[in-house]
């Protein structure tokens, strides 16, 4: 590889494209690598609307959102490699060595800064301990979405959906519109996981029943699925005996969670946050390894693509600055302090704040629904540096707030973010 690049972006979905646009806009020489034949990532198959409300002030579809960002990139000197798969990522003295494979052969590249925008995977049936037979006809929701929207194939004729997250709800509607009978959506928790808007427009509009505190316990069928047994569960998600029911179906759709995809980082010993399942980063989206940045769903699973784009823009800008200024790694970390989540917070990002860095954008989720919540950020002595109230916090809806880094005193050792339910 003869060309010289400052920043390599791994992944050409919404996070990677936003990162490439931001880095290139700052004057960095950027190479973008995408394993599929076309850019766009998951947006290509997300044909429903609701994207872009924050970024563009309109509700547009996934493909439209992806197209707008690709148009931005068209005007910039980003070198794009499609059908190119990263096989190895290693540290070098002044940066990283990357090895790729593509239909043209192998490729090797050395760069000072890398941004991983590798997205996430769907949790499979194997990982949620579905008992019973192993027939065909079981799909994850995203897999089914790809079949219907890209490959002109229906997964089946009569289906049961496990999981009331947004992707499960969206597929309940999509399949119904294409003539599939959706018998019901089953959710193991006592509250739905997806947005209220989707409960109304994907289930209520089509009279598709939602069964809470109920899960699929067993699968029946030899070659093709013939039925499932569902059962009621208690608040600890244990089966309540005597409350199970057999449902005939030829398809089971699973919408049971997303997992950030970061296997390529295994050899680098990057610290992975156990709450987000992605690398722990500072407010510049930089991991514990100098010059290695991450953004989008690879870092933590987002609800809104608008936030994914924002994290990509932050990473792109920071990676361009890092590779351009030749900032010595040690300087990037002196003055960095951890952020701890307490109280009713399920998790928050970023996990580290660089006191010499830019104003951080925080994202957090509540552990449980609350009508009124009080968020406060304090230092290790308990002094409150920031606080605000929220109405109607729900786990599926991630919240965002910004903070001025100058609000944090220079000698602070630790930040503690706390969420508690406020009195009525």
């Amino acid at each position, binding site marked *: 590889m003869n060309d010289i690049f400052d920043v390599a972006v791994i992944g050409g979905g919404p996070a990677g494209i936003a990162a490439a646009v931001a880095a290139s806009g700052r004057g960095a020489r950027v190479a973008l690598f995408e394993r599929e034949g076309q850019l766009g990532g998951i947006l*290509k198959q997300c*044909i*429903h*609307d609701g994207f872009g409300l924050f970024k563009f002030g309109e*509700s*547009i*579809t996934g*493909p*439209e959102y992806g*197209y707008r960002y690709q148009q931005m990139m068209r005007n910039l000197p980003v070198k794009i490699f499609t059908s190119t798969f990263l096989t190895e990522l290693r540290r070098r003295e002044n940066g990283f060595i990357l090895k790729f494979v593509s239909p043209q052969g192998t490729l090797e590249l050395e760069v000072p800064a890398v941004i991983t925008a590798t997205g996430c995977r769907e949790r499979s049936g194997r990982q949620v301990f579905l008992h019973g037979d192993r027939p065909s006809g079981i799909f994850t929701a995203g897999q089914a979405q790809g079949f*219907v*929207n*890209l*490959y*002109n194939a229906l997964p089946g004729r009569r289906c049961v959906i496990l999981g009331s997250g947004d992707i499960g709800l969206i597929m309940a509607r*999509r399949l119904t*519109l*294409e003539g599939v009978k959706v018998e019901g959506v089953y959710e193991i928790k006592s509250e739905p996981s997806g947005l*209220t*808007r989707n*409960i*109304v*427009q994907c289930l*209520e*509009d089509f009279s598709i029943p939602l069964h809470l505190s109920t899960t699929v316990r067993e699968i029946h069928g030899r070659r093709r699925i013939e039925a499932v047994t569902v059962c009621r569960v208690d608040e600890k998600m244990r089966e309540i005996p005597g409350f199970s029911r057999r449902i005939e179906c030829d398809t089971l759709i699973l919408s049971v969670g997303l997992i950030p995809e970061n296997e390529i980082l295994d050899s680098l010993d990057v610290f992975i946050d156990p709450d987000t399942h992605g690398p722990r980063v500072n407010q510049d989206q930089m991991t514990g390894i100098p010059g290695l940045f991450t953004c989008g769903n690879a870092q933590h699973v987002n609800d809104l693509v608008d936030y994914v784009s924002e994290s990509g823009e932050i990473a792109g800008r920071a990676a361009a600055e890092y590779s351009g200024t030749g900032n010595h790694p040690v300087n990037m970390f002196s003055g960095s302090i951890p952020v701890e989540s307490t109280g009713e917070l399920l998790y928050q990002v970023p996990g580290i704040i660089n006191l010499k860095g830019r104003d951080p954008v925080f994202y957090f989720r509540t552990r449980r629904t609350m009508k009124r919540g009080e968020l406060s950020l304090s230092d290790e002595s308990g002094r409150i540096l920031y606080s605000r109230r929220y*109405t*109607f*916090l*729900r786990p599926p*809806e991630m919240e965002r707030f910004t903070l001025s880094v100058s609000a944090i005193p220079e000698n602070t050792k630790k930040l503690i973010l706390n969420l508690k339910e406020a009195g009525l």
Partner: protein
Amino acid sequence: MKRITCILCPRGCSVECSPGLEGDDYRIRGNSCPKGADYVLEEMLKPMRMLTTTVSTISTIHPRLPVRTSGKIPREMIFPAMKAIRKIMVEKPAVPGDVVVEDFLELGIDLISSGVWNGC
């Protein structure tokens, strides 16, 4: 009396909507803001929806093109719209915004492409 969940913000107010004493008058209770009242009234009288789906193309490599209505259509027109869409076969390349069917079903909106197809 109908109970409708407002979807305009995460509050998800459960709003009661019942016919009032005179003709067109409706009584609305349970909303926390005026936008909610407007939304619930529309949902009660004439619910409208964006329709997003795909149409067939003549390609075997990219057999579907994502499309959507350029504006909301009455909820009861969703299945008739799907029936009409099943008859469409796209033959020319398209980018988001290209009109696939003008004045779709005479509802005053177009059926437009929301995806990219390079013709292959």
